[in-house]
């Protein structure tokens, strides 16, 4: 099972479509793994359950994480990601419509690498996603172990 470059954890289909379109438009992401549910996300990240065959050492370049997820919440996933030795070096970008301060505080506390609020305006949204992808996939140097 191949590990994709970008792991996008989001439950809203609309947002997924819009995001993908944005990324594709700017030719940023070629390999994207989309997981729509928190529990499944954790299984993927830690190579468990249905993704047990994945090589955990093979890390994605960046994880795009929405906070409002069913079953396991985004912050919970963030916490798991950032406290596990194997995964804490993976850059995590929270992409959410919440501008609630407490969400921000908690995310940063947990060690989020970036916090982006989804704008309502599509153009802005599109640009933001593109910028993200550009930066984290092409500019940023990930730690490969």
């Amino acid at each position, binding site marked *: 099972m191949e590990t994709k470059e970008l792991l996008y954890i989001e439950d*809203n289909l*609309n947002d997924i479509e*819009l995001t993908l379109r944005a990324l594709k438009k700017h030719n940023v992401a070629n390999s994207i793994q989309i997981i729509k549910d928190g529990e499944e996300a954790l299984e993927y990240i830690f190579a468990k359950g249905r993704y047990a065959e994945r090589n955990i050492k093979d890390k994605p370049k960046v994880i795009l994480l929405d906070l409002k997820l069913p079953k396991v919440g985004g912050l919970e996933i963030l916490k798991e990601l950032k406290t596990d030795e194997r995964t804490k070096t993976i850059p995590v970008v929270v992409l959410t419509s*919440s501008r*609630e301060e407490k969400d921000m505080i908690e995310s940063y506390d947990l060690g989020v690498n970036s916090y982006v609020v989804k704008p309502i*305006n*599509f153009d802005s*949204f599109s640009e933001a996603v593109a910028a993200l992808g550009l930066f984290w996939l092409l500019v940023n140097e990930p730690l490969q172990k």
Partner: protein
Amino acid sequence: MDFFKILTPIIYWLSAIIWTYIFVFYIRKLNSSKAVDSFLRILLIILAIDAFRTLFESFYFGAWFTSLSGIIPIDIYDFLAQPQIVFIPKFITLITSILVLFIIIKKWLPKETSRIETFNSLVEEKTKRIEADKEKYKSEAKSSNEIAEHYRKVTLNSPFPIMIHTEDGEVLLLNNSWKEITGYSFEEINTISKWTEKAYGKKSQNIKEYIDKLYQIDKSVREGEFTITTKSGNKVIWDFSSAPLDRLSDGRRMVISTAMDVTDKKLAEEKNIISEIRYGNLIKSIPLPLVLIDKIGNVNYVNNYFTETFGYTIEDIPSINKWFTTAYPDPEYRKLVLENWNYYMKNSHFNKESSKTLEFDIKCKSGELRTVIISREIGEDEIIVTFVDITDRKKAEQEIINLNANLEKSVEDRTRELDKKALRLGKSQQALTYLLEDVNDIKKQLQTSNIKLVEVNKELEAFSYSVSHDLKAPLRAVIGFSQILNEDYAPLLGDDPKRYIGLIKDNAENMGVLINDLLNFSRMGRTKLQKSKLDLKVIAQRVKGELLLDIKDRNIHIDILEMNMVKADENLVYHVMLNLMSNAVKFTSKTKDALVEVGSINKENEIIYYVKDNGVGFNMKYAGRIFDVFQRLHTAEEFPGTGIGLSLVQRIIHKHEGRIWVESELNVGTTFFFTL
């Protein structure tokens, strides 16, 4: 023969004068020796008679022969030579001789006889007496020897120094006392000169004159006090007296000198004088009115304090009786005072204590009454009376009594008041207790309400969170897909479909803004104020920075003036400034030279901040609605906006307990004022 003519009358006259004198002499002697010797008197009478005769004849024949000599007219001789005239002196001679004879026979001879008899008996008596005296003298001689010896012993042993010396300075006797006190032996001072030299250190004067005087006066003379140097060099003071004594057998006169050793007396006198002076000074120094009375009742002395205090001088009250009448004019009162005085005078003799000190009211010279405490001391010959003026003290005491009485009364009044108040207080306390119970109930209710509120707040919080997330998501989809539709299929679409898609997108975007604003509005309302000291200028400048993007293409000036520091919530105030300033910028978009000014005005007790613009302005009659939620005074075409901004601003200002108002004029400008 002329010579004897003149001589004879002269002789007669001389005799006349002499015999006149003799006659006068006899008469005088007769008068002076009336009682002495009768025999002498008889003799004198006879002589006087004879003298008289001779006297007369001398005068007669003096005149006779003077006339004869021619000195006086011869008529006188003629007169005197007449036989009947010559007869007179001759007759007188006869008469006087008869008289004398008569006296001899009648007075002299009998006297003589009796005199002889008396004489004889006298002689007998005298002889007898002489015999007796002889005997007496014999025994007296014996006893006088004894007496002499006795006197000698007395003299020698007399406690007074005695010296017997002669007029030529030989000292005959010095008694023991003299020798002992002076310390000299008899040999050392056996002459007056030796004595004076040793005792006085100077040469002796001639004492003969002095002794003459002494003998003349013939009694003891006090010479006075002399300082004598003794053999040992000490000085003693002697009071000398001298008296004439007998003559010695060789005729030299003797003097007895006695002395009294007054050295101690003198010392005592000096001491006495000193102590008297001290006593006098002491009396003078006593700082109380003081009177000295002698035992009879005369006032001897009043001191200055007395006169100052009571006004009387010693002339006013020379005696104690005058004092009593003057100082105690009321007779009844005076009686009491006198009784007290008399009691004191009687009883202090026995126990020599000072009297009981009582208070007396004395009338001063000015008429004023002063209260005093009198104390008396009986001295040796004086009574010392001192007064202590306690008028002021008594006044003060009386005042204190009055004050106390007043105080008691006011205390009573106060106590009564306090009781009333206490009663009222009790009632109020009861009411208060009930009130407290009510308050406690209310508090409990409040607490429960508070808890509920907190819960509600939390719910609201959760609600807004959901809203922001859940509402926005579909909105994003609508906008996004509209956009995609536009992008992907624009060329295929006609104008209308394109317009519709645009409308969908715009409205969805609008909704997003509304949702944001609403969320903000509600959040702002819920948060607690976190006040800190803020410089509004700094905040305004931050806002200006934010707005830079919107204004970079425009001709607009934003002036931010100096403003005072204020205590407020930084975040909320930021929103206020952002809102107001972005409004100002927005509504000046159609103004050519847009000017936005942010500043403050200092009034007496508050600072008014303002954001002023010279934009489109509005009609003041709508000013009331401007702060309502979603109220707009322009269409969205004219100026974009949801109308929620100002409500939010107002909410924030009110949360700071400030005021906000606006002044505007169409096409001139708008100014928003607020206080914090």
